């Protein structure tokens, strides 16, 4: 049995820096060129379905795979395929990318039409055809998440509107601007998965969203809004499940195993949108911010648009950027150039100036214990760091490095500036290599 937890999980108080909370989302103009990689999800890469010089339309399927764990990819612009190039993802995986020269007409694919959904199976097919993946950041294919083996045991949908990462406000804007679609999406999932309840979880630093969703769901049965304390990482899957239901997802199990499914607000909103319009996932609402950005704002950008084009739409760089991050500052991944394309699971682009980019050098661990007090999962990051650096696989296993979700709380508080998250990431890899 998992250990019983009666008290709140640890975590850290981060500076919110939600500078763009009041910035209504704006759609950027179609860029000249988009680069659409064939991996934008957890799972197998897609195979391009188009050739160079093919004409493509908005919403046309340009990549798909027969693999179970995958998600189809659609063109976000109309135009001509200029190139099928090689692409390396942030995790180092290699795949193809379809490069499209946009004609700026945005001709919609004629085959698109709203799907007919009358059953759970219809919904799963529709969600796959929409190319939907977890939009909160992980990119887990949604049609797999909504189709767990133990469907009859799943009773609760947790709607993740925590948005605990600093800077990011796109989920807040979505909750405010597309409230009805979000509620519709929740209703659809709750209905076809035959769930008892849906809990919309929002951090208390977003009172407008809490008020608006409380009002919108007031008359609905089994749908409630849960106010979370603002504390990082409230939006992490296992944390939000615990906060909303008191359930602990045991090691090696999925949320569905404890009867819960967690979906991000953006994911659920897109489900409703797809059922209404038939337009698959071709654009994304993201937050663009950071000390090097001239005009931080929330932008609706076509997938595959380069960071450079998106940032140009935000007034360009105020100062020379020294670090560009996809995602939030706690878990986001750096890109090596602003030619990087926008992917399905990106929810923010942050560009920082010199001062905010340079990391202080690592010094010796002074055993202050701050990392242990910060870790939401009660791990011992300092000991894991030591175990990894000495290659002690048994110790890594005993200290359960596999449970680390890489939220970054430990490294955030470390006074010796040690790369504790990196050690855990590499420690997990070492453990995997050893068990193979």
């Amino acid at each position, binding site marked *: 049995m*998992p*250990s019983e*937890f009666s008290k709140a*999980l640890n975590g*850290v108080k*981060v500076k919110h820096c939600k500078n763009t909370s009041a910035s209504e989302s704006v759609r950027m103009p179609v860029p000249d060129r988009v680069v659409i990689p064939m991996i934008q999800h957890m799972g197998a890469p897609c195979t391009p379905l188009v050739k160079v010089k093919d004409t493509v339309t908005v919403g046309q399927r340009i990549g798909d795979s027969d693999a179970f764990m995958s998600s189809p990819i659609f063109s976000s612009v109309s135009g001509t395929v200029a190139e099928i190039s090689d692409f390396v993802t942030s995790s180092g995986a290699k795949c193809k990318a379809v490069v499209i020269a946009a004609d700026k007409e945005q001709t919609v694919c004629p085959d698109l039409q709203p799907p007919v959904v009358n059953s759970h199976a219809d919904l799963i097919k529709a969600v796959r055809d929409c190319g939907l993946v977890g939009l909160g950041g992980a990119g887990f294919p949604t049609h797999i998440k909504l189709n767990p083996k133990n469907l009859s045991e799943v009773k609760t949908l947790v709607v993740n509107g925590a948005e605990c990462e*600093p800077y990011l406000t796109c989920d807040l804007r979505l909750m405010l601007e597309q409230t009805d679609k979000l509620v519709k999406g929740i209703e659809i999932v709750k209905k076809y998965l035959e769930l008892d309840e849906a809990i919309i979880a929002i951090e208390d630093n977003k009172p407008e969203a809490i008020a608006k969703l409380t009002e919108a769901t007031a008359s609905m049965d089994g749908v409630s809004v849960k106010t979370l304390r603002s504390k990082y990482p409230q939006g992490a899957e*296992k944390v939000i499940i*615990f906060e909303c239901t008191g359930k*602990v*997802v*045991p*090691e090696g199990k999925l949320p569905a195993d404890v009867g819960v499914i967690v979906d991000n607000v953006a994911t659920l909103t897109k489900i409703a949108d797809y059922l209404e319009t038939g337009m698959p996932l071709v654009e994304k609402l993201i937050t663009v911010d950071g000390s090097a950005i001239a005009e931080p704002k929330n932008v609706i950008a076509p997938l595959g648009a380069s960071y450079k084009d998106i940032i140009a739409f935000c007034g360009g760089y105020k100062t*020379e*950027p*020294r*670090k560009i*991050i996809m995602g939030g*500052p*706690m*878990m*986001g991944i*750096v890109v*090596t*150039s602003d030619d990087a394309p926008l992917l399905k699971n990106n929810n923010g682009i*942050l560009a*920082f100036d010199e001062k*905010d*980019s*340079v*990391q*202080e050098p690592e*010094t*010796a*661990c*002074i*055993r*202050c*214990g*701050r990392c*242990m007090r910060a870790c*939401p*999962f*009660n*791990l*011992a990051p300092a000991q894991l760091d030591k175990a990894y650096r000495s290659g002690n696989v048994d110790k890594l296993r005993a200290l*359960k490095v596999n*449970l680390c979700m*890489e939220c*970054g709380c430990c*490294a*955030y*508080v*470390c*006074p*010796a*500036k040690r*790369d504790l*998250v990196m050690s855990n*990431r590499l420690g997990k890899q070492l453990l995997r290599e050893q068990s193979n």
Partner: protein
Amino acid sequence: MENKLIVTPSPHVKDGVSTSSIMMNVAAAMVPAAIAATLIFGVRALVLVLVSVAFSVFFEYIYRKLMHLDCTISDWSAVVTGMLIAFNVPSTLPVWMVILADAMAIIVVKQLFGGIGDNFVNPAIAARIFLLISFSGRMTTWADPINFVGGPVDAVSGATPLAILTAADAKVSDAPDMINMLLGIRGGSLGETCAIALLVGGIYLIWKKVITATIPVTVLVTVFVMSLVTGLNPWYMLVSGGTMLGAFFMATDYVTSPVREPGKVIYGIGIGVITVLIRAYGTYPEGMSFAIMLMNIVTPHIDGAIKKMPFGGVSK
């Protein structure tokens, strides 16, 4: 973009606390006691503190330099060690003995074991014990506190309250009263006598979240309870000897104390028990430093025994 982008692992923001900011806070927390020591024992106390800090930093610098290691003096830990060493000696101690203690603490106890983070006992405690055993006479030659009205009185070689109280023919009436004990107007090591100044510094450290209250509270409660058990005056035991200095500043050294809170409780109880046992039954009148050093040594075992099941962890 002219320069290449910086690539680092997440997280990309930090909370601003660094090793040096922590150590600076500890040094700042000791300032009230240093001022009190100067007022109580005269300028010589301040001189010893400054000399000790200077030489601790010097020894750290020169060792790291000669060994071709990164210079670590900017982390302020040598400053803290230097202050603690001075706090642990009588104001009458010859300057060269203080410098020798600095060398012992920084070079032998700290650097030879790998520098900050790797020493297995608190360097300042080890230095104090080294001095006490090597120069017992000089280490127990106490200057009487300055008479606040009439200037310094050089009645040297007075006994400390603990020595008075724990001697075979103890007469409570010979020891200073509680008010003087709290203010620190008594014989003793220069930084340990003013309980109020140490308490102010300790509370500052807890308020600044540099330390948690666990170790000081368990040490003090245990000393109190054990004093009752062994028939000593519990209130008196709390403010005499090195109890306050030890509980707030020496026992709480991160490197040599357990990291998890339950471990800190065991550690604190251990220090309290050993301290009072030495005071009540041992040859030495004071046992705080021995108690801390002994518990420093068992700290890795305490840490090993305190296991916390991670969230969602399943025992196999």
